[in-house]
């Protein structure tokens, strides 16, 4: 009897042990894992879209570190975002959460691009041209992320493969020239592999965008000859495909967001895949016909505002001066200037307006810049005048050679034009830096303009040369082996 029972007991234990595997090694039914991914061309396609997704989600907050610290924008008292006040007051330190998340988002984008580049040869079912396109897109996006990083932080870690944590803690910063070399190599690969804008979905990288970005890289490197070669190549190949849109305001309307001026833009859909930028600058009570609520995070600085001439169409397309509170539509409008560049009718916080990354106007103004550095001032002015003619609707405000006195004053006009043209498109911080005028201009910012007294509120700031590079996020330094990741000068 006892023996029988023990036998039963023992055998049941053995049988139950057999179920160990089903209990302990279940297959995830709803989650893909790294081990069963990147196997088909469709996997790679979805992974490529994932790279765009990262920039798509980062881009709408870039203004917090690229416009707020400039003379274009100042913080409203209405909504507070941690880290922005330091940006606004030029007192950024290494623990600033905005630069921390910018760094993290950018390297996450680079990781997603590296995952595509690393696994690109795993699938065997590519249709013709697909492999080249995906590889080109990944490299274009990787170059874009690195371009942002190197411009903001200087030397940064160079990562082109999938890293383990153990490897990552020992990787330090690579010199700027190495990062630029990687960017150029990636962009050249992208130029060679990407189809034209017409041959690929809107919102995905294309050959013209890669070429345009390459021009920009050479401009930032001040390699004017190389920039000129790329510019000529661009005009040769795409001169007829791209042009300035007649109506500057139409660039910022959903109906005309995809146009002949946009080389590359991030696409959004109202409500389901939108961004916050249309809501961010609206007065808190909203704007009739646009949205019922705004976040009013930041307001246009008078320093910029005052520079727009009254008949510059860009003024109306960038700043609204007189605001009508939606719940008192019949009272006279009140002086309440706000940024309206992205103010399209939208679902709150979920705007569908596409955000351009590179537009033809930039190519034109970069051409002007390059020409001036090559001593061709008249040709350069002609380029600036193209932008001004579009802005004013006529040639009345064109510059002539008499308006300038050598390279410095040419560049002054050029950077003014860039400020007016690209206000709130995240160019100002870099342009302040590039123009060499950061310390001069940012000493004082005119912010709120009191319409009753006709006086602006002036804020004194203390810009210093070291601030032109942001600090390496302290969290990153802390995560790395001691001494591996060094801090930028001025932040220690």
């Amino acid at each position: 009897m006892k023996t029988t029972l023990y036998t039963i007991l023992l055998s049941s234990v053995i049988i139950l042990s057999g179920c160990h595997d089903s209990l302990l090694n279940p297959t995830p039914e709803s989650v893909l894992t790294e081990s069963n991914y990147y196997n088909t061309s469709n996997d790679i396609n979805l992974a490529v879209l994932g790279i765009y997704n990262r920039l798509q989600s980062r881009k709408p907050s870039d203004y917090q570190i690229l416009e707020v610290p400039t003379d274009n924008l100042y913080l409203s008292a209405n909504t507070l975002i941690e880290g922005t006040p330091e940006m606004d007051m030029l007192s950024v330190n290494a623990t600033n959460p905005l630069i921390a998340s910018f760094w993290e988002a950018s390297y996450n984008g680079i990781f997603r691009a590296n995952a595509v580049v690393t696994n690109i040869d795993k699938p065997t079912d590519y249709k013709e041209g697909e492999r080249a396109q995906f590889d080109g897109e990944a490299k274009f996006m990787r170059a874009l992320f690195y371009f942002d990083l190197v411009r903001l932080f200087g030397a940064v870690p160079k990562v082109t493969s999938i890293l383990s944590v153990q490897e990552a803690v020992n990787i330090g910063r690579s010199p700027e020239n190495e990062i630029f070399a990687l960017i150029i190599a990636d962009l050249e690969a992208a130029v060679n592999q990407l189809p034209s804008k017409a041959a690929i979905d809107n919102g995905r990288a294309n050959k013209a965008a890669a070429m345009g970005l390459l021009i920009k890289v050479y401009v930032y490197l001040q390699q004017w000859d190389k920039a000129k070669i790329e510019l000529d190549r661009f005009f040769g190949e795409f001169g007829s495909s791209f042009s300035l849109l007649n109506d500057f305001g139409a660039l910022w309307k959903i109906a005309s967001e995809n146009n002949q001026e946009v080389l590359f833009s991030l696409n959004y859909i109202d409500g389901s895949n939108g961004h916050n930028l249309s809501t961010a600058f609206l007065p808190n009570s909203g704007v009739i016909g646009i949205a019922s609520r705004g976040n009013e995070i930041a307001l246009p600085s008078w320093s910029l505002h005052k520079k727009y001439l009254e008949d510059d169409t860009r003024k109306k397309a960038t700043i609204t001066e007189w605001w009508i509170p939606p719940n008192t539509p019949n009272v006279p409008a009140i002086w309440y200037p706000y940024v309206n560049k992205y103010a399209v009718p939208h679902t709150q916080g979920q705007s569908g307006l596409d955000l351009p990354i590179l537009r033809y106007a930039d190519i034109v103004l970069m051409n002007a810049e390059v020409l001036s550095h090559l001593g061709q001032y008249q040709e350069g002015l002609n380029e600036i005048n193209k932008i001004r003619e579009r802005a004013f609707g006529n040639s009345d405000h064109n510059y002539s050679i008499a308006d300038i006195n050598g390279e410095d004053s040419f560049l002054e006009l050029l950077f003014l034009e860039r400020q007016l043209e690209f206000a709130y498109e995240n160019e100002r911080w870099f342009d302040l830096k590039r123009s060499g005028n950061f310390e001069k201009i940012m000493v004082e910012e005119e912010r709120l303009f009191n319409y009753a007294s006709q006086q602006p509120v002036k804020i004194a700031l203390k810009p210093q040369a070291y601030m032109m590079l942001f600090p390496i996020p302290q969290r990153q330094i802390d995560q790395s082996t001691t001494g591996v990741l060094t801090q930028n000068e001025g932040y220690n």
Partner: protein
Amino acid sequence: MSTKWLKTKILISLLATYPCLGQLSAQILRIQGKVIDEKQQPLIGVSIKDTLNKTGTTTDSNGNFMLSTSKTAHLIFSLVGYLNQTREIGNQPSLTVTLKEDISTLDEVVVIGYGTMKKSSVTAAVTKLENKNLDQIPLARPEAALQGRLAGVNVSQTRSAPGSAPLIRIRGGSGSIDAGNSPLVVVDGFPGGSFSNVNMNDVASIEVLKDASSAAIYGSRGAGGVIIITTKRGKTGKPLLNININGGFANAIGHNDWLGKDEYYEYAVKYQNREYNYVGGDTSIPVWGDNRRPPQYQVSDALRNNANTNWQNALLSAAPFQNYDLSVSGGTENVKYYASAIVKDVQGTLKNTWFKSYGARANVDVKVNKSINLGLMLNPNYTRNRVSPHAMIDLVKYPPFVPVQNADGTYPKARDFWGLVVSGQTNPMAFLDGSFYFDDAMTTIGEMFASIDLAKGLKIRSSVGTTIAYSTSDRFRTTWGSTNGISTGTASDARTINLLNENVLSYTTDFNDNHFDAILGASYQKATSRSSAMGAVPGSFNNDIIHTLNNAIIDPAQTRTSKTEWGLVSYFSRIHYAYKDKYILSASMRTDASSRFGPDNKWGWFPSASVAWRVSQEEFMKSLSSISDLKLRASYGSTGNFNIGNFDFLGQIGNTYYSPNNELANAQVQTTLGNPSLSWEKTHEYDLGLDLGLFQNRLTFTADYYRKNTSSLLYNVSIPAITGFTSWLTNIGEIRNEGIELELTSQNLKGPLTWTTSFNLARNRNKVVDLGGLTERLYTDRFGMSWLLRLGEPMFSYYGYNAIGVLQNQEEVNNTPILSGSKPGNPKYEDVNGDKRITPEDRVILGNYMPKMILGMVNDFSWKNFDLSIAIQASLGAKMYNFENQYYQGNVLGAMRRSLVEGQWWSENDPGDGKMPASALSQLEFQGNSSVYIENASFLAVRNLNFGYTLPEHLANKLKMKRCRFYTSINNLFMITDKNFHGYNPEGYTAGEVDGINSTPGYNSGSEPMNRIFTLGLNVNF
């Protein structure tokens, strides 16, 4: 055959048996009798043994017995829970025996993991709470009844919404950062249960295994302590019907310092003038109707001409509740049953919130034969809950000049009266009336076991249990009840099936002075779940009448189903040995394997050992008659934690979106970095304890010291972002909880008036020991407050600037170390490092959300038929980050509280109390990151007062009742908090407790007021 012969034969037989007959008439006695208890109640199943004649019987269901015995015999009467009694028979033909209850708690039986044990031989820190009238303290959740009753078991009611679960922390929790700190709940042997399915009426007792040596038998999940709930079971005898009915109402304990209309207007003007002054405006310009003043600095006349609404009082009202519980139990020798049903209906004090619950339970025990026992438990439970769409703060902060509702039934908004500055939020009553948020849950727990006696002392018990839980959640908002005028709706449901098989072989034996028992067991558990969700495209509802999603367009981005599962395999063993009931030793070993860990690290080992010495059993102690019991205990144990995601060790690919050509497209990205070596988080705990009983245990005292170190934390450690990720779940770091616990029970008075006091005290100190190489880690929220993990400090301490006053004027701003950008009216901060400026280096630890000490006291009185019980709880040393204060300080021109605005700095000439800075949203940056909103959350509360009257027995019997008790109960009768504490509830944290590295425990923005609950109840036994 002749009759004569027959007669002769009878006669001969009679004669032959005569001597025997004679003997019988001399010695055999048929006696009958009754056994009762001290309350004159008949006792059923009392065993009666005749030691002389080796016969015996038991009492019947009326307590009666009949036995043939002899005059010289001794009868021994015994019943579990009563003192044995020996009686001589003598000549008496009938006998009434009164058995006294065995009040010695030392022989109380406590439930431990996989078994029971006499309390006297327990070697670990185990506390037991018996359900004596706890079911007559009406509470929506049974855990709340434990408040203040057990040392080291902190039950905090962090939220007051109907049906919301309290937070239970045993000895400070399991010391975990990412894997949860809640105790394991075991209901009738089923680990992984929940209080939410438990009806207090069904509870026989609740045991808490506090130290690791006792919890280690549940190894894998015992790190947060173990709570064992044992439900009632049937006993042999006539059916016992128990009816418990109660009802009453709850009253929210609100604030009483809201500014009324006139004061509000006055403050609004003051506030706007100060703001205007900040930007250099001329405050002599009239506040309204003068165009020279920018509109954002004006104050509408509506503020003084319009309504005078107190939103708190408008939204909260006395809320009725009712509970009906019925149970019947009984059984025969072979089949015993306990069955119950409950209906509960609790209205929330906040409008349109409520909780309803319907449950049933059946516990059946069957004795198949001498060696086989079967048991069946079935417990279905259904709850339905309507929840508020918003936290309290979003409701009560609304400005008073807005009427609750218009005559036409519409809801006015603040901006209908004043276009600028004031909140653009929807009317709070519209939120509550226009939101339909329902949560439904149906949970059925079923378990069956068979127990077979294999040999003397050797038993095997096998059980199969299931918990099947279905829940649905429906959310709908009307256009007028939403924040932005767009109707929204979602629907989701989830199903979890949890299967458990346990097999335990147990052996127990006594030889000479030795007692030995041992178990050997195997446990297999698997849980599979499926969830699905759908959502409507915002604004796509055809109307506000039909709330289900068939009235809208389904949004593909919100629609999904997913499945997941986990499994656990465990083997365990425990031996327990006692010599002369004096030296006791216990040791256990458990090994668990979890599917949640990497392939090579699934198994974890959890040993424990404990010893106890009952000093009072020693000969040399016998002379000290005042010491009735003295026991010293020491234990060590190891427990684990695996409360992480099911497939966290794998690098997962997740879905995201992009919109090429402005068309929504799926995208896929790797969302987590895998960690194939992920393994168990482990807690090692030492415990030293002392149990002392004095004066026949009239005074009992228990003291424990413990130290538990949780190491190999399942910690989402920060990693270099160049990996593509910011954090990585790994086993790193160590947290220590160390503390003392005291429990004192005293029978102060005996006799007609009895008075018993139970007092307990617990002190826990939490400390970060290791952070995987880092010395500290900070998480900073959007208004600048940081939560710090730093070596040597309690985890998640508040970290920020220490406010030491208010900057009074520009001169002071110029000459004081300030945070860059500070203005007059901003807080003045301590320049800790003395470098003449306020920089992040000047931040200091500002306190912690954990109480330093928790005290509890229960006093029970009884006199004649009256009884009274008072439960008091106190918590000392916890700090709360009461961020919600800022909403009541004027800065958004919402509702204001006098205590928060009157001390403020307004101007150099109106400097307030010198402590409270000026409040403005534009300035929050300058105080959210400081001690300004850190408040002392210590409190003393009379959690419950329960007063009962039991009908005298003869009256009850006339009404055919066995027992009838009327009672009244008041919960949260009284509470004292610090005079500078401004929240509704000192335990009301709205951002949860510790749940990952970015936790913000102690943060309060919108917890609900506590409720004072008045109850009348009736408990009848038939």
